[in-house]
């Protein structure tokens, strides 16, 4: 595989919490490559290591050993400042807990990471409006979170994750407590961004959500036990056999 192809690469990544007898091995040697235009779902029961994997992929946690590479850059070599910059610019996060700031409007929430990164207010607002348009929420740009439904708030959180030039989108149970139609709309947005060239990782225990992925990997006790064959390039075959 061409190394430039992989937007995210985990190479034999291990993460251990604590030492000695009290040591908990959250991940025990996981390797995974996610390419541009590919959505990989990570499935596994609670405690299998899927959230740890996502935190390591996003530079929110550091591995005990092994390497995490984002767009060709090994995170281990980056200073805290460089890592923070990479997180603001290139990685989008969608978590179950939305973390929207109640005192900011939708567009201000979405523009925040860009402003923190030093973008001018006007440019940041324009990019934020573009991201809100991508999730069909342009009309509600000046509303505060408490003036929006749960599904709308989740879409704002997604717009914030997609704003700017992020090429890696990481989602942890992004449909949260949303009803199935709204949850499906959220996955649709994620899928669309990936189809437009981003790489995506979706952590979920819901099979129906994992169904949106090109590839599903299964974690058990910190080890990847199996993976489905990639779905890329089989559309014609599917429509031929089923339709």
């Amino acid at each position, binding site marked *: 595989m061409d190394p430039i192809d992989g937007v995210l690469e985990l190479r034999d990544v291990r993460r251990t919490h604590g030492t000695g007898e009290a040591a908990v091995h959250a991940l025990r040697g996981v390797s995974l490559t996610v390419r541009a235009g590919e959505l990989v779902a990570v499935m596994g029961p609670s405690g299998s290591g899927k959230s740890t994997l996502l935190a390591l992929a996003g530079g929110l946690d550091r591995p005990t050993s092994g390497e995490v590479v984002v767009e060709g850059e090994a995170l281990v070599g980056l200073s805290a400042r460089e890592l923070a910059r990479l997180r603001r610019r290139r990685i989008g996060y969608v978590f179950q807990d939305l973390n929207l700031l109640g005192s900011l409007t939708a567009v201000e929430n979405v523009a925040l990471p860009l402003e923190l990164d030093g973008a001018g207010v006007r440019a940041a607002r324009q990019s934020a409006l573009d991201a809100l348009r991508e999730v069909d929420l342009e009309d509600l740009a000046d509303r505060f979170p408490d003036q929006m439904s749960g599904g709308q708030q989740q879409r704002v959180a997604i717009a914030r994750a997609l704003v700017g030039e992020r090429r890696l989108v990481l989602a942890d149970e992004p449909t949260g407590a949303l009803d199935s139609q709204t949850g499906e709309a959220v996955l649709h947005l994620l899928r669309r961004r990936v189809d437009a060239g981003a790489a995506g990782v979706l952590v979920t225990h819901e099979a129906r959500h994992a*169904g949106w992925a090109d590839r599903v990997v299964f974690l058990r006790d910190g080890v990847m036990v*199996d993976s489905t064959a990639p779905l890329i390039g089989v559309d014609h075959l*599917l429509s031929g056999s089923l*339709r």
Partner: protein
Amino acid sequence: MSIRHGLLALLERGQMYGYQLRAAFEESTGSTWPLNIGQVYTTLARLERDGLVRPLPENESGQRPYEITDAGRADLAMWFATPISRADRPRDELSIKLALALTTPGVDVRAVVQTQRTATMRALQEFTRLKYTSDKPEDLPWRLVLDAMIFQTEAEVRWLDHCETSLVRHRPAPIRAVDHPEAVDRAGDEARR
């Protein structure tokens, strides 16, 4: 479901001949249920025998269209009004396979579960992709068929997850060999002696 009710429902739209029925049947099931033309004609013959459809004169191309009768309409209405019984569905090979895996020496049941989960998940990905790409309003019947398959495969993955959780907690009882009938007979004979 039976092909007969499928054909009756199609004839309720208007008269059709065999090849039209076959094409319409496959279209409305997203080709998940392929029919051969022989099945169509056999079914039409039975429907005619039971008075549920009536053949019309052949058209100029030599095709004989059929139309639904009042009795056919009543039968169709009854079918729509009656729930499908679970007992009418075929036995589930997967659940039987897992039950046997648990009681067969030397079988890694967790591996059986994972192999199935990967395959079922892959099917779920395919159905989801098809649904995602069938977004035109006229695709609605097909999307609903896909939804049914999506929910069924999802249920299977959930059931497999449940099996795995149960397996983790399970401490197997020693597997007993089934008593050989002759041995039972002999034991009985000895007891009687």
